[in-house]
């Protein structure tokens, strides 16, 4: 048998990039996401007006060359506000997801490792969180903590972390039974080391996959919370809030509601495609949630 010639194999990054470009849905999502990201990062540069500047003379103007997306009921430029709104939404999505993963993963990891009754009670504990229909738990928690963007983010994180705990738990259970971990235990490694070096790297993939798919949903949930009046409040710039304040006028001035609305739609859509792509890359046979 001749040895396999590896000198001409493309580098790992090249293969990855090739797969990204090859997967059409992922690519579209990626492009859209980059647009949103650029809007968020470069908002101050790309904005044409001060997003907070109220100007009653210019209120409710339709889209034009001076105001690309028109103005809202207080005369604020919608295009600029939408750019800044991207910051808010992406930040919310990122922070909530990171928090949920950071809290949920160790819990699931340890429960799977400890096994037995721990696992049972963890499942029941997370069952309680899952018993709440979507949005209700964030609503209740925000009501208790007080309304505001940060309170809403905490509420969303609290509602989300049990899912990650469960996902990591099932993986952790499996991995802790593997020969790899058993031999590590037999070799006398301490629990902490085993958890961190042996178990975590094998367990975090489903959590990351799930996080990438949840990112979009989190933004949607945050926008919905702001829409019904909890979460973001003036002068926060958040797309859901923008749609909410437009309700009195939108029947005659559609752009005030639809522009931020479409911003949400495009962002969440892009992130969903991206999440699907990440899932296909990391977990092609897919038995995630």
């Amino acid at each position, binding site marked *: 048998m001749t040895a396999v010639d590896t000198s001409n194999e493309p580098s790992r990054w090249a293969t990855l990039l090739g797969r990204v470009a090859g997967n059409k849905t992922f690519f579209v999502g990626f492009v859209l996401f980059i647009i949103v990201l650029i809007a968020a990062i470069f908002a101050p540069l790309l904005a044409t007006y001060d997003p907070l500047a109220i100007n009653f003379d210019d209120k409710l103007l339709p889209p034009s060359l001076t105001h690309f997306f028109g103005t809202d009921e207080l005369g604020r430029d919608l295009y600029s506000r939408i750019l800044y709104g991207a910051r808010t939404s992406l930040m919310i999505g990122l922070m909530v997801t990171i928090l949920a993963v950071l809290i949920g993963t160790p819990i699931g990891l340890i429960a799977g490792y400890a096994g037995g009754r721990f696992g049972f009670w963890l499942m*029941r504990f997370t069952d309680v*969180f899952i018993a*709440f229909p979507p949005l209700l738990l964030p609503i209740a928690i925000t009501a*208790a903590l007080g309304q505001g963007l940060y309170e809403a983010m905490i509420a969303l994180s609290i509602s989300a972390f049990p899912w990650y705990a469960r996902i990591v738990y099932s993986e952790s259970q499996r991995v802790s039974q593997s020969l790899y971990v058993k031999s590590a235990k037999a070799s006398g490694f301490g629990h902490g080391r085993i958890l961190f070096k042996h178990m975590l790297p094998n367990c975090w993939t489903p959590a990351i996959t799930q996080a990438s798919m949840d990112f979009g949903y989190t933004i949607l949930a945050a*926008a*919905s919370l702001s*829409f019904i*009046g909890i979460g973001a409040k003036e002068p926060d710039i958040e797309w859901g809030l923008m749609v909410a304040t437009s309700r009195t006028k939108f*029947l005659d001035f559609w752009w005030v509601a639809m522009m931020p609305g479409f911003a*949400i739609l495009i962002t969440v859509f892009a992130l969903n495609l991206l999440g699907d792509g990440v899932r296909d890359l990391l977990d092609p046979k897919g038995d995630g949630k």
Partner: protein
Amino acid sequence: MFTYVLKRLGTMVLILLGVLVMTFFISRVLPGSPVEMLLGSRPTAEAVARVTEEMGLDRPLPVQFVRYMGEVIQGDFGNSLMTKRPVLTEIGERFPATLELVLCSVLLVLIVGVPLGVFAALRQNGVIDVVARSISALGVAVPTFLIAMMLQLLFAGKLRWLPLQGRIDDLVLLDHEFPSVTGLYLVDSALAGQWVAFQSAAAHLAMPTLALSLSALALIVRITRTMMIEALSEEFVTTLRAYGLSSTRVNFRYVLKAAMIPLLTVVGMTFGYLLGTSVVAEFVFDWPGIGGFIVRAITTSDFPSVMAITMLLASAYLIITFFVDMLHFAVDPRLRP
């Protein structure tokens, strides 16, 4: 099988208890001042002292919890700060409206979504499949409030085909009364033969149902499609084809069955999803249901109402899930001994 039912029931009770603990925690432990949450803003010092005494808010937490649990079991959820009436009464009055909306949505989702998913799976990459996958992808990205407002813009604003908000035209209700039998306007008006009222109710239901259903529809289409595709790759499909059964026969008589059984669980989850999302839909359409009420409760800091509704909806969802689980025994032959 009986032991399983008992076990499952036990789990459900356990989780219900957990829900209770959680709502207790949120209402008494989480807020800075539980008393103020229960009394409303800026209560007088004596009111605070009185309520603290009455409700035992100065006792240790476990004692408080037992008391709390006792109240809940008796149906005492306190009074709404908005309306000053018992919260349970407020919920009871609004419940049928939400029920009607959610039921219509579930029906729409199942009647449209399941066949769409099935046919998308049968003709993969065909026109129906592309349509189905597009609806799936977009439907989960659209916020419910956005689709609701878009519908309002088009059908109420521009076309004026449908009413903007509300559950029924007040004038119609006055002139064409019908007795409340089930609490569902469509059913009650039809039973009474009041067709004008029926029309009005239906017209008011149209947009909220559509808005509420869209994201659930997207999910159901995708899941049905996946389940159908999995069922199509089962080995018994090869056997049946090998013995000459036509594709149609195989698909609709045998494969569909295999796909529908796991779908049952998903239907239960859809109920939960719709219950949660109804908050937003009811708010947009000024629908006189529980969802709309909870939003108003939040904005008026009517904390007792918020907690009570949260707890009740979670409990309702748990019970629905339990029944769906039990339904499996009737439907899935593999569970028979």
